[in-house]
């Protein structure tokens, strides 16, 4: 909450003045019943002039009320939108700092809803609060105070009514809010079933599960319906109860007023004024009830946003981190007894890994699914910090350079090609902002993307939709490769990045990389022996352990697992 509310600080003037102006407006409204009382008590005795004068005062009250409330609306809109804009900007910055660990922990979809609907909820909550939060209680209590100034004995009716109303409104809210949460959960579950049935439509139909799934959906649908109606039954009490309480109070008020008038303590006009104050309370209470629902929702949203702010980036630059690598170092990457465990996991994903890679070498990394290949290369880019051991890049500890500088020197093609909305050119230029046409064309050639890009009418300026939806898997992957190669980084990591390419293209790609002019250090992660067999060194991973290291020929004699992998792919043929 606090973390979110401090964003109002910049709009402190608006935050203070908007409610004050609203209160002033409310104050003006509180005078209206008194004027009506005057008209009845004095005007009707003294003639038209007095009545006209009083009506002019009514007009003036209305006009000033308009002025006050328009400026209040403007200020609260400014404060609410302004704080939401700043909050969004900061939250986005904060999320951008997250390492993979934080990302995986929270999950993309949650982050997106917090960035969008939660912040919108906070915005409208702040806006409403500034506008109404002071106004409504002010009118409620103001009416009571005005009633006291008119007649203390009659005003005692208010003293009973207001707490009674508050009890009703707040009890209903206290009971329903947790139930609303329950409804939300049921709705989420229904949504899950729907989504699942869309994504799994082939399997569900192949297994003829339509009837079962319909049954599951219907059950959840009915459970939701019951939950919704249970809440509604309670919340639908609010309006009738306030209606009855306020009107019965009015009856009592008139009764008390009648006795007071009969005794000569107050006038007829005063009774009318008292009644009008009671009527004003009813209107405001209904507004207040709606407001409180909205505020509770906003508070929940603010809480969710705060939680994101609470998550700290786990990969941090050390204070003396520098932007320097000696690119002529003999050793490019060195693991010394490195272990790694994912946060929240109990077992190490990598166990005691040690190896050294010479500058300019090509390293193949092979192993089964879940053996830790991707984890290992993610450590080189410092997407996660190692749990134990030492990791040196160009003979310096990985945390002695800034994260940004480290990643400038590493080009990665991830397993899943992630593209962005824009053009093919925009996407490739992510690797090098000021790339020339020539560099672009070289990168296209190297990544084997030239053929299909040139086939497109717009060539490099071909539009790419969100997530690259309009491109095939292989096309996306080749663009992702071009994007990495254009960086001309001294270290290149290909994380199973040719999986969507056919074998011939894959082979050509590897050949092109091998012939890169600057002689970079290359890591090739793959499940295919053919992709790694010509590397200078092959690392064989199994269940997070390094079980073999050497060339293809060496490993065939030293590593049983490697031998098994080979024979599984070549069908026993020795090649």
């Amino acid at each position, binding site marked *: 909450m606090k973390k979110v509310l401090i964003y109002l600080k910049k709009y402190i003037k608006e935050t203070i003045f908007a409610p004050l102006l609203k209160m002033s407006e409310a104050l003006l409204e509180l005078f209206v019943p008194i004027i009506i009382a005057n008209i009845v008590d004095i005007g009707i005795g003294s003639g038209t002039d007095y009545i006209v004068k009083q009506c002019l005062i009514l*007009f003036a009250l209305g006009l000033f009320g308009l002025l006050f409330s328009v400026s209040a*609306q403007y200020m609260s809109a400014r404060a609410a939108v*302004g704080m939401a804009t700043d909050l969004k900007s900061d939250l*986005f910055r904060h999320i951008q700092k997250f390492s993979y660990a934080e990302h995986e922990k929270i999950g993309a979809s949650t982050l997106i809803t917090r960035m969008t609907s939660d912040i919108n909820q906070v915005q409208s909550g702040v*806006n409403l609060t500034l506008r109404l939060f002071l106004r409504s209680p002010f009118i409620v209590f103001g009416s009571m105070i005005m009633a006291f100034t008119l007649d203390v004995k009659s005003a005692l009716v208010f003293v009973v009514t207001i707490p009674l109303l508050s009890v009703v409104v707040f009890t209903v809210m206290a009971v329903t809010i947790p139930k609303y949460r329950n409804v939300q959960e049921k709705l989420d579950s229904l949504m899950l079933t729907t989504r699942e049935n869309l994504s799994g439509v082939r399997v569900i139909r192949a297994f003829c599960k339509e009837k079962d799934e319909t049954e599951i959906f219907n059950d959840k649908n009915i459970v939701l319906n019951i939950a919704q109606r249970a809440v509604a039954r309670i919340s639908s009490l609010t309006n009738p109860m306030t209606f009855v309480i306020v009107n*019965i109070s009015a009856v009592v008020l008139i009764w008390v007023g009648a006795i007071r008038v*009969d005794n*000569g303590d107050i006038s007829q006009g005063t009774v009318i004024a008292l009644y009008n104050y009671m009527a004003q309370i009813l209107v405001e209470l209904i507004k207040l009830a709606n407001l409180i629902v909205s505020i509770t929702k906003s508070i929940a949203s603010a809480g969710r946003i705060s939680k994101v702010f609470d998550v700290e980036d786990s990969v941090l630059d050390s204070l003396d981190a520098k932007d320097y690598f000696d690119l002529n170092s003999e050793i490019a990457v060195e693991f010394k007894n490195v272990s790694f465990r994912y946060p929240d996991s109990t077992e190490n994903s990598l166990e005691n890994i040690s190896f050294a890679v010479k500058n300019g070498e090509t390293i193949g990394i092979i192993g089964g699914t879940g053996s830790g290949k991707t984890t290992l290369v993610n450590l080189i880019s410092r997407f996660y910090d190692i749990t134990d051991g030492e990791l040196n890049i160009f003979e310096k500890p990985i945390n002695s350079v800034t994260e940004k500088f480290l990643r400038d020197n590493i080009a990665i093609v991830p397993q899943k090609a992630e593209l962005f909305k824009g053009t093919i050119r925009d996407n490739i230029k992510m690797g090098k902002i000021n790339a020339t046409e020539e560099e672009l064309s070289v990168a296209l050639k190297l990544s084997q993307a030239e053929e299909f890009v040139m086939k497109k009418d717009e060539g490099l300026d071909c539009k790419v939709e969100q*997530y690259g939806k309009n491109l095939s898997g292989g096309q996306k992957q080749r663009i992702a490769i071009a994007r990495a190669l254009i960086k001309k980084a001294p270290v290149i990591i290909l994380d199973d990045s040719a999986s969507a390419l056919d074998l011939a293209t894959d082979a050509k790609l590897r050949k092109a990389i091998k012939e890169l002019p600057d002689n970079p250090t290359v890591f090739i992660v793959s499940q295919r022996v053919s992709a790694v067999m010509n590397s200078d060194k092959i690392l064989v991973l199994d269940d997070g352990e390094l079980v073999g290291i050497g060339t293809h020929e060496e490993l065939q004699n030293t590593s049983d697992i490697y031998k098994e992998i080979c024979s599984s792919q070549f069908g026993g043929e020795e090649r």
Partner: protein
Amino acid sequence: MNTKKQTFKRLFSIIGKYKAMLALTILLAMVFVVISLYIPVLIGDAVDTIVSADNVKFDALVPILVKIAIIVLLGGISQWIMSIINNYITYNTVRDIRKLCFDKLMKLPIKYIDSNAHGGIVSRIITDVDTFADGLLMGVTQVFTGIATIIGTLIFMALMNPVITVAVIVLTPVSLFAAKFISGRTYKLFKNQSEKRAEQTALTEEMITNQKTVKAFNYEDKAIVEFDNINNSLGKISLKAIFYSSLTNPVTRFVNSMVYMVVALIGAIFVLKGSLTVGMLVSFLSYANQYTKPFNEISGVITELQNAIACLERVFSLIYEDEYSEDGKASFNDHSGTVEFKNVHFSYSPDKPLIEDFSLKVKAGETIAIVGPTGCGKTTLINILMRFYDVKSGEIIINGKNIKDVTREELRSNFGMVLQETWLKSGTVLENLTLGVKNATEEQVIEAAKMTRAHSFIKRLPNGYNTILGESGGSLSEGQKQLLCITRVMVMNPPMLILDEATSSIDTRTELKISKAFDLLMKGKTSFVVAHRLSTIKDADRILVMKDGNVIEIGNHNDLISKKGFYYNLYKSQFEV
């Protein structure tokens, strides 16, 4: 307009069964309106009995107050029952519509599901239905009570004093005009706002989902700049939209207070002349207060109603979407597993022909492998074989029967299918594995899992076979999910098999280990195997090499190698560097 009419007709077919309840709620609304309008009259009467000191007519006052108390209670009760009925109608309609949606979902052609964004369909069933229910049903009652209040007020006022009534009638439209003027201006602003907001959401989504790439390319700063640009212009638009729209309230309130003033002025003068009592003036002032309120409410509700109808139209377009072609009625007499494609033509879109005049006879028990570059039509063959899509022309004959003549259930239950995209439902491992055969015993399942090597990792899950998997398999790796999908078919043991890249995410060593299980599973069964890893299909009886929807080579591995054609090159490239 015509579509609107249709929409209402369709809506009525759904809420028709709540007719009686609808009538009752309207009746109760009327009761409440009359009561809430009658109260000011009674209050006025009461005030008239309280004239001055020693001039209070208690014997007249008491019955009036009792009367008020009674009708207030009646009003409260009718309002309460009304909202209970409204909730009943609303939530049940929501439930009914969602049920219709889901029933339809089960009968939609796969083509529809493939070509529409899933998020869009989900939001129709969840969000749109909610918006419709809130907007339409609540809106209708509000409009109805609003109109009743206006008419009722006019009648009550006219009965008391026609002159003041005319003054009120002349003045109130001012507030309507003001509200309309403002909402006309703000409509465009809101549209701009939602467009900008959509743009911002799209960017946020992209940058967060693609976080890995953003980090790898140090793109954070640029993403922030892009975001801030959109964010700032959104801020400006939002400020305008919110401010202008929030003007409605103060402006109409101002107009209301002017009406109030005029009523006070004219009313007081009438009292002075003696043609109106003080109590009536009080009643009039109450009316002036509540008379303009329904106008404001109605103008607010109208936009909500429009939105609700738009949502409803979207929902109906789903509910009334064409279903898949009619089901056949027959079932297979023999289950031997012969398959024949006879001059089959198929394409996803008419302008892009894909499979043309494809014919193939498959003997019972044969293993057919299909290879070829991406987009060649491998998966398409499976789509038409399982009747996920219907062929354009030609016939597919299975077990001697055209697949159009047998029920889909019969057809599909004869096939076991493992796809490249592993799909698991949220539920326990066991539930997922028994998807094909509900009454499989745990022993059967474990035996199958042992054969596919899935047992060893399932065992290590927190609750073994009863571990609950999250949405789309939760934290399992792609390879583990694929093993579960294979086990699922293993448990089912169907007469025919379709394996579409069934082992693409499994490493080759494990693949080799489960190949025996596959051999056992495929033994004696007609099987269709799609794979790009050629080593997995070398033993197939026949290999179809496809390119651009056509079969360009056919034969077993050795035939095709010696032919030195497309397949030969494909196979060779596997070992090239």
